[in-house]
């Protein structure tokens, strides 16, 4: 029997793909150049010419949201990619090395977790200056800690299984066992976690850009757009709605994708027939 794909997986994948498509489209085409300033047409409500209106510099909001999608997804992808590169090997190492290495990785993780990701990013931007790169570094640090912990937990559950023992008995080294037998068995868990972290990274980037510490103008970012819109809340209230909708849809798509993948990979999470 073929396993039914969960609904959330479908919806999440469609939403995410739509956003990625929008971000890619912005490379080739936007209704207006996203950084084109036309003060004469500032703070206009949505119309046929500007579907989502214009901001306080007369920039087209739809174009800015499209380019903002590209910026947000790029920051999120970089933060999660670097997190995977750093966290997964550390987690595998911790599980493979046994007590001593395990302890070191776990304490390092505790150290990172004591500082919420946004605080780390604020500290880093305060020391090194605001900018997308520093935000990526701070978020990647946090993601690496989370992924190391998740990888370690999942790998520890695989190590005692008979086929790992069999491979070791056949003379395979620990490195080869880790790569050939442990990693494929925990890849699903890691992918699910990475999807969720992607969503978290996008929210955090928006929050930091809202504060003016993330992506720097004139490059548009959803968070910055919300920050600007707040100043003009009386005259153009809708400008405070559209970028938020974009963030919410993006995060919703990614979390649903993560939930759907988890339900699909792990039969335990499907509702049981007891109640």
């Amino acid at each position, binding site marked *: 029997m073929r396993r039914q794909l969960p609904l959330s997986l479908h919806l999440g994948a469609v939403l995410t793909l739509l956003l990625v498509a929008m971000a890619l489209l912005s490379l080739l085409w936007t209704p207006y150049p996203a950084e084109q300033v036309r003060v004469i047409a500032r703070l206009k409500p949505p119309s046929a010419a500007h579907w989502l209106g214009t901001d306080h510099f007369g920039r087209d909001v739809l174009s800015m949201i499209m380019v903002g999608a590209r910026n947000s997804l790029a920051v999120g992808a970089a933060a999660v990619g670097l997190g995977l590169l750093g966290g997964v090997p550390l987690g595998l190492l911790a599980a493979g090395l046994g007590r001593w290495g395990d302890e070191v990785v776990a304490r390092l993780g505790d150290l990172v*977790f*004591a*500082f*919420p*990701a*946004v*605080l780390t990013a*604020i*500290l880093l*931007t*305060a*020391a090194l200056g605001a900018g997308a790169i520093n935000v990526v570094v701070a978020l990647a640090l946090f993601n690496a800690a989370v992924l190391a912990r998740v990888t370690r937990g999942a790998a520890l559950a695989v190590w005692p299984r008979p086929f790992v023992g069999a491979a070791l008995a056949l003379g395979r080294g620990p490195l080869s066992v880790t790569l050939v037998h442990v990693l494929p068995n925990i890849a699903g868990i890691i992918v699910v976690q990475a999807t969720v972290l992607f*969503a978290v990274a996008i*929210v*955090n980037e*928006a*929050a930091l850009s*809202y*504060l003016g*510490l993330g992506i720097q103008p004139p490059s548009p970012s959803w*968070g910055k757009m*919300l920050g600007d*819109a*707040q100043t003009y*809340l*009386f005259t153009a*209230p809708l400008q*405070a*709605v559209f*970028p*938020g909708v974009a*963030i*919410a*849809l993006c*995060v*919703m798509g990614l*979390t*649903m994708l993560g939930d759907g993948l988890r339900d699909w990979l792990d039969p*335990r*999470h499907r*509702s*049981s027939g*007891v*109640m």
Partner: protein
Amino acid sequence: MLGFAQLGVSMPSFWIAILLILLFSLTLHWFPAGGFPGWGGGIGPALHALVLPALALAVPEAAILARVTRTAVLDTLGEDHVRTARAKGVGRTAVLLRHALPNALIPVATVLGLQISFLLAGAVVVENVFTLPGLGRLLYQAIGQRDLIVVQGVVVLLALFVVVVSALVDIACALADPRPKGVSS
């Protein structure tokens, strides 16, 4: 219900804050859009100014906890003691409240402890939305003025707070665990 939780998780707290200002301050004029009168003017006006910031932080939090509680309860419903309780004739609601919920509260409390750090980070941003004179606003202004010593102090203080709360939550979890002590499941 689940859709609402999904929506709440997806909306960043500072956007909820802006939407709340739009609705309750600019349209309905129920609450102030920002600022803080201080505790000197009595508790009433001070709390009045804190309603919207608190709500902005609470909505995503409630949505996250709703999702965690649902998963945790579904997990415990599959366990043997729940089936036993159903089999001996306990009603659905009673099983949910007396047999499933106490066990499910452990992961909920754990997540609550982890969320404290995200709440603090969220407060830094939300304080700036409402221009509340708190640690978050202090931190933000200190960055603007390149006052690294203040930034460092505030961040270390917040990190200390996170560590203490995590420790307290761990202790609370150990105390609240309904399973018999010293028996591995």
